[in-house]
């Protein structure tokens, strides 16, 4: 049901997108991307970034693709009022016109499951965001230390 309505919305967005120069995923800008180094490949990695929608239509991130991980997925960490943290797939992420969605520690993150190689500090990898209008945005993500707290110190 949700899926069906979703594709209707996506179709409409797509038809409207052709009329405007910078609409839909073409209007998405990604800034301050960074990831933490991993210890080997057995643990999942995490990447963070700010996804800004400069257009006048809502855009929806439907998935992630990278050759670094077999199962990249946007997750949300939430901490309840007793201080218990849990993590779950965030599903599709909508970004309103002129809005920014931050993937940051303790909130949303790009969870990189089934790493194909270790994430080494100083290296970078490319991650592609998939949008509901069929568009893709490719981001080059620098890998920082395991103890990094943000895109820069």
């Amino acid at each position, binding site marked *: *049901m*949700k899926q069906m*309505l*979703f594709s*209707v*919305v996506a179709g*409409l967005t797509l038809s409207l997108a052709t009329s405007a120069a910078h609409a839909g995923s073409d209007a998405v800008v990604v800034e301050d991307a960074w990831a*933490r180094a991993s*210890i080997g490949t*057995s*643990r*999942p*990695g*995490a990447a963070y970034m700010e996804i800004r929608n400069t257009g006048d239509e809502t855009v929806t991130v439907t998935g992630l693709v990278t050759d670094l991980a077999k*199962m990249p997925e946007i*997750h949300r*960490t939430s*901490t*309840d*009022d*007793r*201080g*218990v*943290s*849990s*993590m779950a*797939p965030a599903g599709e992420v909508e970004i309103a016109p002129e809005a920014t969605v931050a993937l940051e*520690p*303790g909130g949303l*993150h790009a*969870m*990189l*499951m*089934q790493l194909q190689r270790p994430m080494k500090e100083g290296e970078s990898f490319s991650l592609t965001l998939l949008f509901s209008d069929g568009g893709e945005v490719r981001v080059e993500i620098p890998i920082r*230390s*395991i*103890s*990094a*707290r943000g895109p820069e110190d």
Partner: protein
Amino acid sequence: MRRRKFLGYAGAVTAAGGLTLFAGWWRVDGPGAPAPSGARPLPLTKMEFKLTDHEGRTVGPETLIGKPTLAFFGFTFCPDVCPTTLSDISGWLDALGEDAERLNVVFITVDPERDTAEIMEDYVAYFHPAIRGWTGPENQIARAAEGFRATYEKVPAENGGYTMNHTASVFLFDAAGDFVSTIDYHEPREFAVPKIRRAMKEETKEAT
């Protein structure tokens, strides 16, 4: 027309959100809630558990008496909250400078199945050298968590693996082992160092 479809979608999202809230209630306040919630941690002198630190030494709550303590539950397969908290703690310890040596700082795993002492050793090496990693048999971890009034739960993940939900607060105890306060995950970071200093002052008070 377009607007109506959007509203329809919003309705579906709201319904899904309602379900999530219900599921959350069930686990947090409802019949699915674990017994000790929001209760004050016991004094370290009243806790009883036996674990192993990342260098293979036998440790327990008595190891922590004599210095103020920062303790935190987590697991090394945690990609987000745990490295963030350990980085934050490392930052606070850096801010404390030499005073950091007057503290016990322990990271207790809630995932002893994967976090052996060797794995803990590899992991803590990436953070401030004052941080000790503790692991041990599942029943001892459970007793430790019970003493701290912390909770944890194994949750199956979609890819056949599992993740752990766990209390992410940092617990502060004074040198006598009495609970002082917690530093909660979403608390503004600038409150942390003064809170640690307060726990250290209670030590001085105790000593004089």
